[in-house]
């Protein structure tokens, strides 16, 4: 296995998306992936910093990347899609603009070399860990489970970057799900916006966007939606009762993290995977 990867948890994994963090850590343990949490990390600036003050947002991430460099890592894994998007975008900008890097290093008093790669969780699992290694760890194949993989708007769309998967119709998470023995269904809403950014501020718009995603998943006959983004999970899961009623949806749709599904197939302790933390219960009898 690789020398290890540096985990950037961000505010979500240590907060509302604890299930993501816990399942991820356990799955990594099962796979023998060594993973160390970045010490002294700071906010990635996802919510407002990048929109309000571009330099501030760059500086925040320069600090995070510099910390990773200090701690001896050349790669940072950001499971949260928003963190990934901000860190990767900042890295892209800093990495190709030496003058900018020099200026921000000077202003912040840091010494970032511009060389730390930022990775997302799906790509890391599919490519670095590998589908064969994942399949080899499957103790109870999820035979019979039909899932739709929801990548959301952020994970595949870092502007101006070399895409790590098809931006509009990615497949990496589908392949992981297939490696677990489940069936990943074709559907239309893989990368559609779920409106998580408006979760608090504009509930109606948010509900409409979520309802379309849920509706297609239901119509395709999916048993669950698999995600790799804390906001997506939160947004698709939390208010389902009201959205279902308002948009006339026939049944609830569980929303699980890909790492939770992996843990289940690996035969890990279900309580540690925190499946019960979701609002919509996910029940799948693992043989």
């Amino acid at each position, binding site marked *: 296995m690789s020398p290890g990867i540096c985990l950037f948890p961000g505010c979500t994994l240590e907060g509302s998306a604890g299930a993501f963090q816990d399942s991820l850590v356990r799955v990594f343990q099962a796979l023998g992936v060594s993973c160390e949490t970045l010490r002294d990390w700071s906010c990635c600036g996802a919510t407002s910093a990048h929109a309000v003050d571009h330099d501030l947002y760059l500086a925040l991430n320069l600090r995070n990347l510099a910390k990773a460099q200090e701690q001896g890592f050349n790669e940072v894994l950001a499971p949260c899609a928003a963190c990934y998007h901000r860190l990767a975008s900042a890295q892209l900008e800093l990495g190709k603009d030496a003058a900018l890097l020099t200026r921000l290093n000077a202003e912040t008093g840091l010494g970032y070399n511009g060389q730390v790669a930022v990775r997302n969780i799906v790509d890391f699992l599919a490519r670095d860990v590998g589908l064969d290694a994942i399949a080899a760890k499957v103790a109870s194949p999820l035979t019979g489970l039909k899932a739709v993989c929801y990548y959301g708007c952020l994970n595949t769309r870092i502007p101006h970057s070399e895409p790590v998967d098809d931006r*509009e*119709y990615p497949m990496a998470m589908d392949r992981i799900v297939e490696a677990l023995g489940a069936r990943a269904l*074709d559907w*239309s*809403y893989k990368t*559609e916006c779920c409106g998580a950014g408006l979760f608090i501020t504009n509930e109606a718009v948010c509900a409409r966007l979520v309802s379309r995603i849920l509706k*297609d998943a239901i*119509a*395709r006959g999916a048993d669950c939606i698999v995600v790799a983004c804390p906001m997506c999970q939160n947004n698709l899961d939390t208010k389902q009762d009201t959205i279902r009623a308002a948009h006339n949806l026939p049944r609830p749709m569980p929303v699980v993290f890909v790492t939770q599904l992996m843990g289940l197939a690996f035969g890990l302790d279900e309580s540690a995977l925190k499946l019960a933390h979701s609002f919509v219960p996910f029940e799948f009898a693992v043989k």
Partner: protein
Amino acid sequence: MGTVPSERPTGSETGLSPFLRDVNMENSRKKVGAVLVVGGGIAGMQAALDCANSGFKVYLLEQQPAIGGNMARLDKTFPTNDCAMCMISPKLVETGRHLNIEIITYADLRRIEGEAGDFAVTINKRARFVDEEKCNGCGDCEQVCPVSIKDTFNGELSERKAIYRLYPQAIPNVFTIDKNYAPPPCRGTCPAGVNAQGYVALISKRKFLEALDVVRERMPFAGACGRVCHHPCETECNRAKLDAAVSVRNLKRFVADYEWDLIRRGESVERPPSEIVPPEKQSYTEKVAVVGGGPAGLTCAYDLAKLGYPVTVFDANAELGGMMRTGIPAYRLPREVLDHEIRLMLDEGISVQTGKVLGKDFTVVQLKAQGYESVFVATGAQLAKKIPLEGGDAADVLYGVPFLREVNAGGKPSLGSRVVVIGGGNVATDVARCARRIVGEGAVSLWCLESRPEMPAHDWEIREAEEEGIDIHPSWGPARVVRDNGKVAGIEFVRCTSVFDEDKRFNPVFDTAEKQTVKADTVILAVGQVCDLSFLEGQVQTNRGLIEVDRLTLETSLPGVFAGGDNVLGPASLVEAVEQGHRAAESIHRCLRGLAMREDREPVARPKEFADIPSWAGCACVARNPMPTADLAERATSFTEIDSGYTEEMAVAEALRCLNCGVCSVCRECVRVCKARAIDHHMKDATRHVKVGAIILTNGYDVFDARRKSEYGFGRYPNVVTSMQFERILSASGPYEGHVRRPSDGRVPKRIAWIQCVGSRDVTVGNGYCSSVCCMYATKEAVIAKEHDQNIEPTIFFIDIRAFGKGFEAFYNRAKENYGVRYVRSQISSLKENPENGNIIVRYVNETNGRKQVVEEEFDLVVLSVGLVAHHSIKDLVDIAGITCNTSGFVQGKLPLPLESNREGIFLSGAVSGPKDIPETVMESSAAAALCGELLSAARGTEVRVKEYPVERDVTGEAPRVGVFVCHCGTNIASVVDVAAVSDYVASIPGVVYAEHTVYTCSQDTQERIKEVIRDKKLNRVIVASCTPRTHESLFQETLREAGLNKFLFEMADIREQCSWVHQREPGSATEKAKALVRGSVGKSKLLEPLQFRRVGVTKAALVVGGGIAGMTASLSLARQGFDVHLVERESELGGNLRRLHESLEGYDWRRHLETAIDAVASEERIIVHLGSEIDEVSGFVGNFATRLKGASNAEIKHGVILIATGADEFQPDKFLFGVDDRVLTQRSLDEKLADGFRADTVVMIQCVGSRDAERPYCSRVCCGTAVKNALAIKRKNPGAKVYILYRDIRTYQFKEDYYREARDKGVMFIHFPDDAYPEVTSTGKGLRVAVRDTVLDETIELSADYIVLSAAVVPDKANNRRLAELMKVSVNEDGFFMEAHVKLRPVDFANEGIFVCGLAHSPKYTEENIVQALAAAGRAACILSKPSLEVGGVVSHVDPDKCATCLTCVRECVYNAPFVNADGKAEIEEAKCQGCGNCAAACPAKAIQLRTFTDAQERALFRSILHEEETRSDHMVLADR
């Protein structure tokens, strides 16, 4: 990314051709009068025809099996909605028949050496596995081919066979076999080379006996192998990647059993008739001995016996079969199967001597002494391998091989009640299972060293053994046999921890601490077999217990003695033994015939590569058909067969699971039915070398792969199709036979959406350019769909509608107004599918009730208007041809002439240099032909062939002697129409002196036969009853000419399309109809008359009207091609509009170009310039015109052709304060100002001034590009300047799009206003103000401007054009531009032959396009001027002056202006102009006009003879009618 426009071209990169080249110096070098045209699409065909028709030999190279290119796939063409196939088909035929065009299809360009004028070209002609010379295109092979794959020609919406013709009208009309580059895994892995895909494919079509023949080609033991083979074919089967492998072995068994069942029931096993001629059986005298009657020996004997050798098989046993008999238990291989198969083999004439033991009864050397000239030793591995085992060497310890031999011979060895079998291989499982059948359940256990996964026995053997109740104990090694009173009492085992060491060598390691003793009264050791080679007595060399042989030939150390099978390989499988037998037979044959022993032979080896899983193989899982087996309880106690075999239905279902990875399955059904014997599965690629003087690249384009825009779901949503697929959906020859259906459920779609710019104008996929054609083809598709079904509601989602070509804007308007096509200006970002009904959901911005909002709408079908991308073959051209490509992958043409590549002598035409439509492509081809003519004029006529014919026999006064040839067309006609009956019937008609029926009347040998009959029977009329005259009439007419008969004494009856095809189910009536049709032809033929052609000379001079850049370019080209030119210009100087233009959008210097051109014209002695003069009068016809000038010159000019290049002008607007305020300019005056240092801070440009309005409904094409050019120029001078371009649609097509993007990047503001709300311009004290309705903001905004620039229309000089049109009898359209003969395929010709048009006189165009069109006109003109004379006459109209009333009906009716009133006041037809259309004959009220060969009398005779049998029989009645 698109081309980067910001780099300005420098002088050295731009070709100033054709003006700067020193043609005379070039002409002094040696030139080859031949041209290579690469690509057989419309561009290639036009280039080939123009080159060939102007005196050059042409090689036309095409990658596909047929010419026709993408145009052959289109349904209709815009803007006239002509059927693409109807237009292209005559071109196909003309190209295919041209004496001086050699079509080389299915071929790739490999190398171009040499230089302009003298190139050496290497071509690789791929094997098509069908002999083009012999194939008649009858299609019998296609009928029987069992392999269906997705038809790429139809966009994979339908299927085609592995042997196929690209499309029904394909030229050459021959078939091609599609084979994969590598063998399918099943065939590749079989040691004996048995063609599994072949027989599986045949089984899928219920051709069971034919399938068995395929098996038997390499496997004489089909039934045995079908039962016991270890089937490596299944292990590697690609289907396993989807669900499970095809049950190849069971299918093989099925066909063997099928035949055997028929035999046992006494039914016929006769195969259908076959054209495959088995090699004649020889009778050689050299005797061959085969020692050993196992699979290897018998196979060898059988092969040699079939070749004709006297073979004797010696075997030690009483019965033949070897290990198949003595080693394999009967429950796996019933003896009667074996007996049957051996009997069939022996029937080939093999002598057998059983009970003869080598080494005891005879030796190898003795055999040689007895006159056996060659010996094959295949004695097998008959001995059991022994291992040192304490207590194991006594006689009561049994061994596997002899045990099985005894059991299989019907013996019943005495076994105890506790049997322990030791060994993990297949012999051990066989032994255990046999023992279990003898002693019963629970008494047998099996022990082996290997762990369970390591056991060498096949999984299914182990599984079945377990099912039968045998306990298996892996990882135990025997330590000693425990004896009690000397008798076996048990056996002690120790734990085996590993069997193989790191090098995978057998090296078992035991843990002696772990041991157990098992009670047993019988121990059977089955731990291997070895060969008994004692009989060799040292006569043949051995090595480690095996006979030493040459692995390729199997020859031993003793010459003439061969060995194979287990005694060479060690214990091996049945298929491996059979392979050895074939190999030995081949060697013995070669040896005895003195042939090279090693040539063309391969050792058994796994191929490097297998055919991959086909791209179209979906994952529709179909479970493997399980083999029905006998009940477990029953089977475990008897030796009757376990597997009972597939039923027919199971076999067919299983065979249909095959993915046909190899495409062609080499089943040879095509060979069986091909009466022309054209098929050759052993064909190899061939290399051609040709010498040419010039090369035209017309590689064409590919369509964008819509899968790359994954947001549209193409390939996932069945109801999202590409525009090319939709063309096929519309086409009558397409997947749905012209009915508009959607792929998911075949339902007729109502709401259809087109999404524009898929893969075009999109830098994210690397295609920044505009594909130029999509707006119009989408419009056409929408209109045609609507014509197919009025209920269809088409919607086109677009960014800009780019209707910039001639007639396009009117077409677009018609689509909106007459057809109700809805256009929505909204670029669609993604498509969603409604999972309930398969509909596609489109989200877009729409204006409803004056408010813009996002709406979602469902469509039944969505068509992606995919762009055109560089053809895949272009990449290789960079190395092969040394040309360069632009960043979009198209070949880079020089400025200003995109027809020239950077390598001299290599020209470009069509989409090879960028996306373009058909007329432009056709123009470029004619222009490229002109450039070839310039380069090679010295060699014109040196490589072409002129056919010489014998003098025609004078048949006047002869009574009709009719010969009739009735064609079978393979089985196309003969399977329905009784051709013999037709022939017999026809022979009885009076006047018919000869009738016969031939398999293919069009074949070369039949042509010779027809000539012979014409001579022998003194025929003076010939009739062929076969297919359509459209494709075949001229072929037969040619044959008549070669036989010295006038070609108009030929008549054709179509009994295929009109009889066998349409009346397939009524053979009786079809035959009667065929008789009637032929009878009609006979009736007509008696009235046929020989027609003669007249030759008229050609004046080798051209008249060019108009001295602008188009006229000058055409003049220069014609002069350089060796023709005289009169250039007439009404103004006092040359140059026209170009005098006021400075540079092109691309930065090319027009000023310098113009100066150079004027100098070149002046110094060209073949050009006479008539300035200040106009055309006064024109007379004559093609080849022989006479024109009088007026003005400064009133010369009388004689010339062969006319080129009209009278140009157009810029519109002078009457709005927007133009002419009132001098800060309001047109683009042309801005262009001039820019050259003189214009500077402004704010400029507003208004597009479509005077274009696209009620008065001038056409688009002026150049204004958008000009506005972008001038905007960029302003920005270059003053980057801070504000430039606004107010537009309706920005029409920067092709690579001009890159400049539009650059302009946006540089801050030029583009504001879209509605079609019906033009901006308003006012002048205030402070300056100019413009109010414009911005459709994006949905608000009116006000701009102030220093200058306002109007993009004014291009307008023709209507009065002058009309005057010229009348003088020359050509037409102008309603806009005042000259109207060409056909907008698509004849863009520079007029219907009147010998007159051509180019430049702005034809339609608005950019200067470089005018130059191309001028060259095209020159190229077309050269086709006439290069001929020494023109043939006139033949099938033309003729006026009977006595009947003519001089009513002028014919004069008005004829579009070619052929009729005129002569000096006698009667109508007369100018034969040189007559095209034989017959319009005048039909229109003439006095019936004074007759079209020759279609005279009233002839046609009446035809119909009367068809309708009334007696008419034909009483000749006088018909004759009386004349």
